[in-house]
């Protein structure tokens, strides 16, 4: 404990929490955002924009239910299109939350304590946005429960040898465990809000959600066990989710999909885009709510380093894909490589290389790693790059496969775009609601970072 506190306060570059805080000031600062601070006009504007985009998404989905997937740009041979591109993109973004809360907890990276809560919330909303796409892509979303094994009069069961069913289990497990992890982390903070709010309705709601938490030593002891075990279970889980998503591709025989590099390269890409999204949210949030004391330059810097590292794993993945296209001696693989570099979608592939490998190299510059605006822009570029990567994987492999007679092109329609942009709106709406009604930084974990939390030996 002793070294850990020292490390927290006396870090070489920037502290995890600015000095001078006490248990009371940390509690007041974070809970006042929810309890006493008036809701700003900016919040209403942001929420309003998100809400309108959500309505647009619902309209697009409603029209889809009436008309069918023909309103989208998907055709044969490109039957997957935007739905799967966006699904993989959102699921990837959803990886950072659990990575931050579980893996960094096991690695005793205490700087995670100030960003884990909203990163977990981000995970939940991103996975929710992701879940919409395969659901509506089935064409008959009202029959989606057929994907689960339940006893039925048709006397059939799902096909458990199919990676698409593995995906159902992986994503639903991931959502459930992330939700539990997030909620259980919130319980002590909800008790704080219950005790501090002066509004009767808020007291009752927070009181119910806090489950009667009273901070007993016995409770904390079991709580810490459960939290650690959950982190231990979530760690392989977070690595498995994008692995299973990559199986959706890698189990198939389509050129560009049928490779063993896919699982690690997908997971690294997921963390890459997830941290980019964390930064894109953290930078404006810490500015707007003046939380620079808690989300310090250290957090920005560490996240930038994670992006740099995972970015290189992703770059290695691209390298191996290109190398195997040549080295395998397989004509179809070689053609895919040529098609990526010179085919009709080549500009997208080149932009992907620039966005994911080229531009992020500026993160080597120390000054940029602590410059919020610069990091925000680099994160935006990475998110675009990762979206392009999924587009390249899904569309470019399908549009020209083995038979030249069945080649085709894919052009997204306005409905594709409306659904995609709509899910971004849904994500923003949920984030805005979250920062308004729940503590966006874990109060009790921030208390443990303070020097006074240390128990002095007698």
């Amino acid at each position, binding site marked *: 404990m002793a070294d850990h506190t020292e490390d927290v306060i006396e870090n070489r570059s920037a502290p995890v929490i600015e000095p001078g805080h006490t248990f009371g000031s940390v509690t007041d600062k974070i809970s006042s955002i929810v309890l006493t601070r008036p809701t700003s006009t900016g919040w209403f504007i942001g929420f309003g924009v998100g809400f309108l985009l959500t309505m647009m998404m619902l309209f697009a989905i409603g029209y889809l239910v009436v008309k069918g997937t023909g309103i989208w740009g998907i055709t044969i041979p490109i039957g997957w299109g935007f739905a799967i591109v966006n699904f993989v993109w959102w699921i990837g973004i959803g990886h950072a939350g659990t990575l931050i809360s579980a893996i960094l907890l096991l690695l005793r990276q205490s700087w995670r304590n100030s960003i884990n809560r909203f990163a977990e919330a981000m995970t939940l909303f991103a996975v929710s946005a992701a879940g919409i796409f395969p659901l509506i892509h089935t064409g008959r979303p009202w029959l989606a429960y057929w994907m689960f094994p339940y006893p039925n009069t048709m006397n059939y069961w799902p096909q458990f040898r199919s990676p698409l069913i593995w995906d159902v289990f992986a994503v639903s497990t991931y959502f459930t465990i992330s939700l539990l992890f997030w909620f259980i982390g919130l319980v002590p903070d909800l008790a704080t809000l219950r005790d501090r709010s002066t509004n009767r309705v808020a007291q009752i709601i927070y009181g119910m959600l806090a489950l009667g938490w009273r901070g007993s030593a*016995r409770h904390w002891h079991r709580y810490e066990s459960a939290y650690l075990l959950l982190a231990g*279970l979530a760690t392989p889980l977070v690595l498995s989710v994008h692995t299973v998503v990559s199986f959706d591709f890698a189990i198939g025989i389509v050129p560009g999909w049928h490779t063993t590099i896919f699982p690690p390269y997908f997971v690294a890409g997921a963390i890459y885009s997830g941290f980019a999204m964390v930064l894109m949210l953290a930078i404006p949030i810490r500015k707007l709510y003046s939380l620079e004391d808690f989300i310090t330059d250290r957090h920005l810097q560490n996240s930038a380093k994670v992006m740099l590292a995972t970015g290189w794993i992703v770059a290695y993945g691209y390298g191996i894909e290109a190398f195997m296209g040549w080295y395998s001696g397989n004509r179809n693989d070689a053609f895919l490589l040529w098609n990526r570099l010179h085919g009709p979608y080549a500009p997208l592939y080149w932009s992907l290389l620039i966005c994911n490998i080229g531009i992020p190299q500026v993160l080597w510059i120390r000054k940029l790693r602590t410059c919020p605006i610069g990091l925000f822009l680099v994160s935006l570029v990475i998110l675009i790059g990762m979206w392009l990567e999924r587009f390249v994987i899904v569309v470019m492999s399908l549009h020209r496969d083995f038979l030249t007679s069945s080649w085709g092109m894919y052009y997204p329609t306005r409905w594709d775009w409306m659904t995609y942009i709509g899910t971004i709106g849904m994500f923003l709406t949920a984030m805005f609601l979250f920062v308004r009604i729940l503590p966006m930084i874990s109060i009790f974990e921030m208390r443990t970072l303070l020097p006074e939390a240390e128990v002095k030996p007698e």
Partner: protein
Amino acid sequence: MKTTPIYGMMAEFDSASDLVAAARKTNEAGYKKIDAYSPFPVEELAEAIGFHKNGVPLVTLIGALIGGLCGYFMQYWFAVDSYPINVGGRPYHSWPAFIVVTFEMTILFGGIAAVFGMLALNGLPMPYHPVFNVPRFAMASKDRFFLIVFSTDPKYSPTGTRQFLESLGPRSISEVPS
């Protein structure tokens, strides 16, 4: 006149160190039915009140095992017995294809068991509890530390326990009505 039954005697402290020291002394003085409350997990505190082992790891293990076994045998039964599909004479019991779902089910059931097991062992949710009757206890979720001796403790006496707690140098002492 009816007197309110007493749930226990509560002492308030300023820091985690004070609370741990006080809890240790109380435990050593022979009080066994005690509890301590802190606004964040204090590792040494459970030890100080004499609480060493908890059942959460075992519950989680059992949950994870049930999940894994159910996951595997569910797939086995579907593929071999209930709904066999012959794909070019390949074996029905194609176990490598069942690993992913088995793994996911293990994690799912283990995680659910960890969370709900922890809540059940803690007796939560419990919206009402006698300690909430003490107005100062609202600070327990902010920056104050509390120690309680339950009135069910054989050594408990309204005056003796108060004197003992006063000797620990608390910030305040209050009786907790039940």
